[in-house]
């Protein structure tokens, strides 16, 4: 007892300035500095907004994905959900005489349901999330193609819908605001609500959560629902940005989204991960893509560099975690 008390006084300040918390931002800053040196235009305000703008869709999806990954799951179906959200939105706009207020809530609720359904398979039957969501991925992609075919569905009206993706407020694109607001909400939910705590608890120890009187299955299902919801918001923004909806959109985006979350340090085994770090993961991928684009690096070198940068960035954050071990 006594021994540990004396230890606390030494360790307390140290644990407050946990180095691993600074590591990821440090990697971000180092990367930014290098890109800025190579081409100063990288650091212009214009470009920083562009990076945020380019990251916003993946970012929003990653926010929601973080919750799923914290529970120890994974959701591969976000790509098709993104696509079908656009298609559904186009359809609802069509049948509701361009009423955004009907189309968006309707789309979001359908997509939430899709996610909740895959969540139930994971929670109640205990199937591995990777297979369930791969199946959902396939099913939703097929369903999208069945209802909309592979063709592009143009969305020209209404102005309010197009504003979501293409509008500017004070020179900054609307998706950036949406991303920032949702990020703030997600941080709040994770830090300040019972739900946020319980999500971590479920990922940490499913059984103990159950024995503490919580419906851990319900929490899991909500997480998968939220993940699909995030994908749906991404889908609506994308449909609005490109004025088009198609069932073929969003192929391969799941890996980008998961990469952002895992880059932020969340473990796929569950229980760990925070929204702030996910946001940094998102920014890191955004900066890599943008920086390499600015330098006009060709695709082959771009991919090699991307791999190398990700590993180096992780190394930096890993280094001091090992030291603190």
């Amino acid at each position, binding site marked *: 007892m006594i021994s540990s008390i004396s230890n606390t006084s030494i360790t307390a300040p140290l644990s407050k300035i946990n180095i691993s918390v600074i590591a990821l931002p440090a990697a971000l800053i180092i990367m930014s500095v290098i890109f800025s040196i190579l081409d100063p235009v990288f650091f212009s305000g214009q470009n920083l907004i562009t990076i945020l703008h380019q990251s916003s869709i993946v970012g929003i999806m990653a926010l929601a994905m973080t919750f799923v990954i914290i529970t120890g799951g994974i959701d591969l179906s976000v790509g098709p959900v993104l696509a079908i959200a656009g298609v559904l939105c186009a359809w609802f706009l069509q049948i509701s005489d361009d009423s955004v207020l009907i189309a968006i809530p309707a789309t979001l609720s359908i997509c939430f349901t899709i996610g909740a359904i895959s969540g139930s398979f994971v929670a109640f039957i205990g199937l591995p999330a990777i297979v*369930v969501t791969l199946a959902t991925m396939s099913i939703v992609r097929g369903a999208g193609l069945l209802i909309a075919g592979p063709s592009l569905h143009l969305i020209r009206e209404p102005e309010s819908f197009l504003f979501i993706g293409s509008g500017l407020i004070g020179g900054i694109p609307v998706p950036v605001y949406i991303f920032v607001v949702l990020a703030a909400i997600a941080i709040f939910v994770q830090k300040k609500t019972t739900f946020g705590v319980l999500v971590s608890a479920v990922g940490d120890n499913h059984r103990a959560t159950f024995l503490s009187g919580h419906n851990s299955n319900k929490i899991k299902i909500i997480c998968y629902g939220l993940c699909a919801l995030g994908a749906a918001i991404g889908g609506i923004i994308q449909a609005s940005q490109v004025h088009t909806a198609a069932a073929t959109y969003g192929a391969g985006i799941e890996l980008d989204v998961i990469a952002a979350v895992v880059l932020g340090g969340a473990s796929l085994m569950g229980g760990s991960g925070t929204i702030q770090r996910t946001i940094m993961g998102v920014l890191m991928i955004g900066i890599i893509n943008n920086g390499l684009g600015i330098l006009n690096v060709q695709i082959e070198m771009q*991919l090699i560099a991307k791999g190398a940068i990700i590993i180096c960035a992780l190394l930096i954050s890993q280094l001091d975690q090992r030291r603190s071990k």
Partner: protein
Amino acid sequence: MWLLKNIPNRELILFFVITSLIFSLFSSTFRSAGNVENILIGFSHLGILAIGQALPILMRGIDLSVGSILALVGMVMFDCYIIFHMPGYVVLPIAIAVGTMAGVINGILITRFRIQPFITTLATMAAYRGLTYAISGRQLVPESATQAIDDNLLGLFDEFSGIFPYSFFLLLIVLAAAQYILSRTRIGLDLYSIGGNPEAARLCGIKVDKMIIISYGFSGFCAALAAIVMVSRMTTSTENLGIGIELTAITAAVIGGISLQGGIGNAIGPVIGAFLMGVILVGLTLTGISTYAQPVITGVILIAAVSYDRYKYYKLRSKNSAGESA
């Protein structure tokens, strides 16, 4: 206990047979010998990949880079044969070495730097793909794009011996070797131990890092074999070879009973999983179901395939351990 270990496969085989029977019922072509040949030759490479994938998953890891290794090996073979005119017996060892090396690099990155396998192999997935683009003979020597690899040895795996393609024999050899190693040797037992409890394994003196490198090396090795089979069938290679195949291979492995939590599974399950994917694709094509409805049905079959044996497994487990009604 013996039952518990073996049941997942038994259920899967049953499911596989039932699925095949249903397709046979709806399509006369499906039950023809020609179709069996097609499925065997068409999905042997996936079976090999799934076995390769099984090892990292057994060790609580994952290898997302197999698709890119596949492309890299394919492109190396292409370059060696078409551009440098090497004979088949030289190309093959080079191909296998490249694939294994790529896997070993994954393993080294994971063990040396202690980075999560998922993100490591995601990074190398990008890097190997980039490397494939960079060394692409098709880009460097444009006229090579229309030349075929015409070598007896390199074309071997598109040949049949009776109804069985040589690629299927290759799969059987890999399967037998992998299953033997997993079930009968120290290496296999050490792999299971690390997957089941890495810390315990380390404290028992098992060389955890070495085994992890071996498992990713094996995954790369299998990717190389799969690439050889594919190049053999295509008589060429392309830069976008194997995009997305990692998810198919992982799915095949997981359907085959390899637990993503590590330490559980065998080599046979993933092969059945791979052929189940094949049966679904071919079966749905032959029953004439619309191309857009196919993914829907594929998804439903996937869920059904894992649901049944999971259900059995949970029932058994809740019987065995106390107070597990959660």
